[in-house]
């Protein structure tokens, strides 16, 4: 308690003493819930109460921002319990220079060698505690970064003693713009890490990740390509080399916007047995997070059954286009395809595998032995004169095959879904706006011959731009739900005070499932109960 008191006193004293030049900003987010989750090996109902309060304080001086977060997550909604002060930083910007000390999120190019970010809803945080010095010039820019990362993978936070990986990270980024249309960049990241794997005894690593990239923009065309090599050194072991390539090409016209992306991630291609060890020290490290190269959706049912990107062994492409049919109607189409690079055949003994080439390894394949994923999506959006009224209709077809040959058995899980989402929002008069959502989904897990149908309906109304009342109902014909349930419902009430403060209360039964954002995935357990969210900005 003492530390909070001292920090607040210092903070407020500074602000009062230098009130002419200093301003304070604070925001608070409180999330609390009371109910139960269905989880664990025997799918028991477990009481779930949580209380997460985050207060962010910012102190702005001329050219300088100072900030910290006061967190009370006890018990947390997800992630680890924490009570105290974190994310302290000082940010100084003067002319073309910037210096930041303390908590840092950063990105080099598209994240092949370094992408430090936080996703609280997934309990993912790869931000470091350290120092960054940057320069932004017209022809040249660059930054150096150094710090420590203590990383807990969101997939193991639920075990009794979560595994914490420690890294010392040093990075350098340099960009040169020799002519207006061209930018050439390079990064070098060095890390010394400790990864306490429950399987491997080699837990100390040293890795070097050099990267080179090129960016060009000519008229309405954009081109980007980046290539990174990762060399991992371990004691008493040979150097392991992996690589990653990402490229994008886009055209931005008045009527058509087109983007083609390509990925070839080979940071750690290993046989199925080694692949099962998710803590292997040679894998892509948690601060490497390149583009996923497939679409992330906003409709609820489309967020189910996500494709989990394997940054160690995946090749794929994506084509995304926006067509502006009229000034108020836009069509979005998306196609993505991805697969592993190789097949593995069993050797003479159960632990032996032979890598087998199936087709061109630098192109994705539909061969089931390469675990293919593909998705096609259309969505049309029409806004009426007033942006408060719109219609959005979508169509999605998705297929993924998870082929695993572990020597003892062959597992070939295939899943196909067809989803039709729709959303209609209408302004009736100056104070009432309603929104209707309907999502239909047909699921085929054809190896096990499982077929079922999911449907979600939502209706909400907003009054005077302040009060929101909503209802969501979901049903399934699936017999395979962990809790054996066939339907779920949630009622929601929200009220906004002023423009920056809001309260949301919802109550009901929520369906669980896997959620992924930016290639980071987490399993959400079914939850029954009450949730309260209060957001405040001062």
């Amino acid at each position: 308690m003492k530390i909070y008191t001292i920090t607040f006193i210092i903070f407020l004293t500074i602000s009062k003493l230098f009130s002419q030049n200093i301003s304070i900003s604070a925001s608070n987010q409180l999330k609390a819930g009371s109910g139960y989750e269905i989880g664990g090996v025997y799918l028991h109902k477990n009481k779930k109460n949580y209380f997460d309060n985050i207060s962010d304080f910012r102190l702005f001086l001329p050219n300088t921002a100072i900030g910290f977060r006061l967190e009370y997550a006890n018990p947390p909604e997800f992630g680890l319990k924490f009570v105290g002060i974190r994310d302290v930083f000082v940010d100084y910007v003067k002319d073309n220079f910037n210096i930041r000390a303390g908590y840092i999120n950063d990105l080099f190019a598209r994240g092949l060698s370094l992408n430090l970010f936080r996703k609280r809803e997934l309990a993912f945080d790869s931000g470091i505690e350290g120092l960054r010095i940057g320069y932004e010039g017209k022809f040249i820019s660059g930054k150096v970064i150094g710090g420590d990362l203590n990383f807990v993978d969101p997939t193991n936070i639920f075990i009794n003693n979560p595994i914490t990986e420690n890294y010392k990270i040093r990075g350098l980024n340099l960009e040169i713009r020799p002519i207006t249309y061209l930018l050439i960049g390079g990064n070098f990241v060095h890390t010394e890490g400790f990864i306490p794997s429950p399987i491997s005894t080699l837990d100390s690593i040293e890795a070097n990740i050099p990267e080179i990239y090129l960016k060009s923009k000519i008229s309405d065309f954009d081109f980007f390509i980046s290539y990174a090599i990762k060399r991992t050194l371990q004691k008493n072991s040979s150097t392991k080399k992996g690589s990653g390539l990402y490229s994008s090409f886009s055209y931005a016209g008045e009527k058509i916007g087109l983007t083609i992306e390509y990925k070839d991630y080979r940071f750690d291609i290993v046989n199925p047995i080694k692949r099962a060890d998710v803590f292997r020290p040679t894998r892509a490290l948690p601060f490497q997070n390149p583009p996923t190269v497939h679409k992330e959706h906003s409709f609820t049912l489309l967020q189910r059954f996500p494709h989990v990107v394997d940054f160690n062994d995946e090749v794929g492409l994506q084509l995304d286009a926006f067509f502006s049919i009229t000034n108020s109607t836009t069509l979005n189409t998306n196609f993505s395809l991805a697969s592993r690079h190789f097949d593995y055949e069993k050797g003479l003994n159960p632990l032996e595998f032979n890598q087998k080439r199936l087709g061109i390894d630098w192109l994705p394949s539909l061969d089931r032995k390469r675990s293919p994923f593909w998705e096609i999506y259309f969505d049309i959006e029409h806004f009426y004169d007033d942006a408060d009224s719109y219609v959005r209709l979508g169509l999605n077809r998705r297929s993924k095959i998870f082929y695993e040959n572990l020597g003892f058995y062959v597992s070939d899980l295939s899943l196909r879904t067809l989803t039709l989402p729709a959303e209609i929002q209408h302004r009736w008069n100056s104070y009432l706006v309603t929104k209707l959502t309907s999502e239909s989904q047909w699921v085929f897990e054809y190896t096990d011959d499982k077929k079922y149908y999911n449907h979600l309906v939502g209706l909400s109304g907003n009054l005077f731009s302040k009060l929101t009342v909503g209802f969501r109902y979901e049903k399934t014909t699936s017999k395979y739900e962990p809790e054996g349930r066939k339907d779920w419902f949630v009622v929601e009430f929200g009220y906004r005070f002023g423009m920056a403060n809001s309260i949301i209360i919802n109550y009901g039964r929520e369906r669980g499932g896997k959620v992924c954002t930016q290639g980071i995935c987490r399993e959400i357990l079914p939850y029954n109960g009450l949730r309260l969210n209060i957001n405040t900005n001062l």
Partner: protein
Amino acid sequence: MKRIIFFTFIFVTLYNINSSAQIKTIPNFMLEGIDGKKYSLHEFLKEGPVYLCFWALWCIPCRAELKDLNSIQTMYKDKKVTILAINIDSPKSTAKVRSYVSTQKFNFKVLLDPNSNLFETLSGKNLPYSLLVNQNGEIIKTRNSYLPGDKQSIIEDFDQILKSIK
């Protein structure tokens, strides 16, 4: 008991910050635009007030706000108000942002904050998140949601800030 003391302390502090009615000044920042050029906030503040709107492709209310901002920008094209739409999509979507923006024919500048550095520095937590900054760099209004009907309140804010300049 500790929890009660802790939260009482937070709310008293927040209340103190609020009641002191301090002027909140935004620090300068430099971001890359979707045209590949670098822009700093100070450049725009020299012209007049700035409305900063953080958004992402997946955020549907943000897209409604951008539609409204497009028509607001047209209404105020001869007035010295700048609208800056700051995209916080992660690097996975950066390539698509430009093609989306061009087909929507947005008439305001779109900047990129791909790892949400600026968003977090300015205490952003959820999208949509927007700030209205006057010519002296003082934050006049913060908005942490975009509900139907908010277009009118943005227009009122713009009129008020322009009146204060005169």
